[in-house]
């Protein structure tokens, strides 16, 4: 692991504010997690990283971004990151305030909404802080007329760090979509999102991950939800060589709620890890998690789901379920649910199942003239789409698998 570390070219920014963050992140980052690190025992990231991924920082000519092929079927506030670099042209709007993260951290605007993650505990957040430069700070003042979309296009190899901060102000209802697409170069994308849902606000966070086959994608979304606020997270993953998608939600005040749903569709020797940590810190909070995975070939799926209920968080409800379809003999899934309950008046449950496609269902479809390959696909899509049943916006729902 020391070998890997040697390949990192640390950032040394002239700006004292950024420099201070870089120093702080670097001091907190000890090493890449291995199998021996409990939180990463199923997903030893260090084994997937190569010196080449770390030594080069991707280069893209300023102003040149050929995200070309992508056409969203609806109107949106679009922001594009090409190989980790923010493509700087912003939409003027009364609804949302937008600032590049390297500028935002120098202002008072971002104030209480930055660096709320314990860097000693989360190595990739520490590493991300050590490379703080690219990313966006978005403050949603009013309910926007259209969704906010971040497109991440990864063409070249190298190491890419992105840090975003999203604040949904009191009472707003907003949709934020992250879309990742990549070519088959080996790259390492390390992204951290800090999310703040203020009183009675509702933020729906969508993530569609379709990275290239050689990509290592590490993402942490850390959401704080205030009184009556709702954080909804929907994730669909089907790319990358090794992926860790980690979601933390702090239900800080009464009546705060979270919905964290995810589905993954694994082929080849792809490894996708979905890790959640939902903290109920106040009374009358609620969380629901529904995760579904389809694993084919030599794919490896991981689900680690934690629900923590603090002593004061009475009358809370926390539910979690993971279902996996294993389509080949070599497909593998590791599931680790954890409930930490310190209050007595709570409703809490977790469940996990795994199995193959139902042969009777396949036969039924075949007996109606549908060939086996199509029949299997119909059933796989039906299985995956259950994670997206609750998506209200039909345009966005269409981005996910459907029957």
């Amino acid at each position, binding site marked *: 692991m020391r070998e890997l570390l040697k390949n990192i070219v640390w950032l040394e920014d002239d700006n004292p504010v950024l420099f201070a963050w870089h120093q702080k992140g670097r001091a907190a980052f000890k090493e890449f997690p291995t199998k021996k690190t409990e939180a990463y025992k199923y997903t030893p990231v260090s084994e997937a990283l190569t010196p080449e991924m770390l030594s080069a920082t991707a280069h893209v000519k300023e102003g040149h971004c050929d995200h070309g092929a992508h056409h969203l079927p609806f109107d949106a506030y679009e922001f594009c990151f090409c190989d980790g670099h923010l493509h700087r042209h912003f939409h003027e709007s009364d609804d949302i305030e937008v600032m590049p993260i390297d500028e935002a951290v120098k202002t008072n605007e971002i104030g209480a909404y930055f660096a709320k993650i314990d860097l000693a505990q989360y190595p990739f957040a520490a590493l991300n802080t050590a490379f703080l430069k690219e990313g966006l700070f978005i403050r949603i003042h009013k309910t926007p007329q259209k969704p906010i979309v971040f497109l991440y296009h990864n063409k070249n190899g190298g190491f890419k760090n992105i840090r975003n901060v999203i604040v949904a102000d009191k009472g707003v209802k907003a949709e934020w979509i992250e879309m990742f697409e990549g070519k088959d170069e080996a790259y390492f994308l390390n992204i951290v999102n800090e999310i703040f849902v203020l009183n009675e606000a509702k933020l729906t966070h969508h993530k569609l991950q379709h990275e290239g086959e050689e990509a290592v994608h590490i993402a942490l979304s850390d959401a704080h939800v205030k009184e009556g606020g709702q954080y909804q997270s929907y994730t669909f993953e089907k790319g990358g060589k090794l992926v860790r998608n980690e979601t933390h939600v702090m239900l800080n005040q009464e009546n705060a709620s979270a919905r964290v749903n995810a589905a993954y569709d694994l082929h080849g020797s792809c490894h996708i890890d979905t890790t959640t940590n939902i903290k109920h810190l106040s009374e009358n909070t609620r969380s629901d998690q529904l995760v579904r995975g389809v694993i084919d070939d030599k794919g490896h799926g991981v689900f680690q789901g934690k629900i923590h209920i603090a002593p004061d968080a009475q009358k809370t409800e926390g539910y979690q379920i993971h279902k996996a379809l294993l389509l080949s003999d070599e497909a593998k899934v590791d599931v680790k649910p954890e409930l930490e309950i310190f209050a007595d008046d709570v409703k809490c449950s977790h469940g996990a199942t795994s199995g193959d496609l139902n*042969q009777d*269902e396949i*036969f*039924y479809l075949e*007996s109606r003239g549908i060939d086996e390959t199509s029949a299997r696909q119909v*059933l796989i899509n039906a299985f995956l789409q*259950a994670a997206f049943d609750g998506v209200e916006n039909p345009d966005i729902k269409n981005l996910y698998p459907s*029957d």
Partner: protein
Amino acid sequence: MTNKQPILEIKHLYAGVAGKEIIKDLSLTICEGEVHAIMGPNGAGKSTLSHVLTGKPGYEISKGEVLFKGQDLTKLKIEDRANEGLFLIMQYPVEIAGVSFMTFLKHAVNKKRAYQGLPPLSAPAFIKLVREEAGKLNISDEMLKRAVNVGFSGGEKKRMETLQMALLKPSLAILDEADSGLDIDALKVVSKGINDLNDGKRALLIITHHQDLLDYIEPDFVHVFANGHIIKTGDKTLAYELEAKGYTDFIKEASCESC
């Protein structure tokens, strides 16, 4: 009758499941426009015949021949048997969570069209077609939006099976009611669907235990099935004879006649 084209020709068929031979030396020819009923006691292996014909995994033919419109049915894949015009109205249709009936029907209809070299139906044309057929069977839009058979009553399931048959217009429909309880209302709907479809070019094979079923769909031929094959063939009156005597005595007598 001699001018009628055969749709299904079963010649000296031996077949079974899990190494156990259930059908032994079965021969049967069904021509276009004909309604055949196979009757027999519970556990005689009547359902095995419908499974063998549709190609259900696990069922194997050890000897004999099955021709469907002149071609070797056993060489066709399950979906191709369906696309060639074989349709099984299942005894217990499978429930498929997450797949709406509309989506399922669209796949089925367009796969058949593709098999026939036709382009897929446009969404409006497809919806119009389904609504038209569904209306005849008292199937609401709400039912079509629901997941395939999930939470449907036995009668509703049969209606949905009949809708699929109406859309796919098979050459041979097999109504397998081998050992399910008889739901008269469902049966009326199915029989109406079958009668609407019968333009003299299609055929129907009913597999049943109950004589009552034949009051709704009148068979041209009744075959009594025992010991893995047909022991006696007659017209509709044979069903009444069966009813009067009961299977045990009837089979005993019939076996003696043949010896």
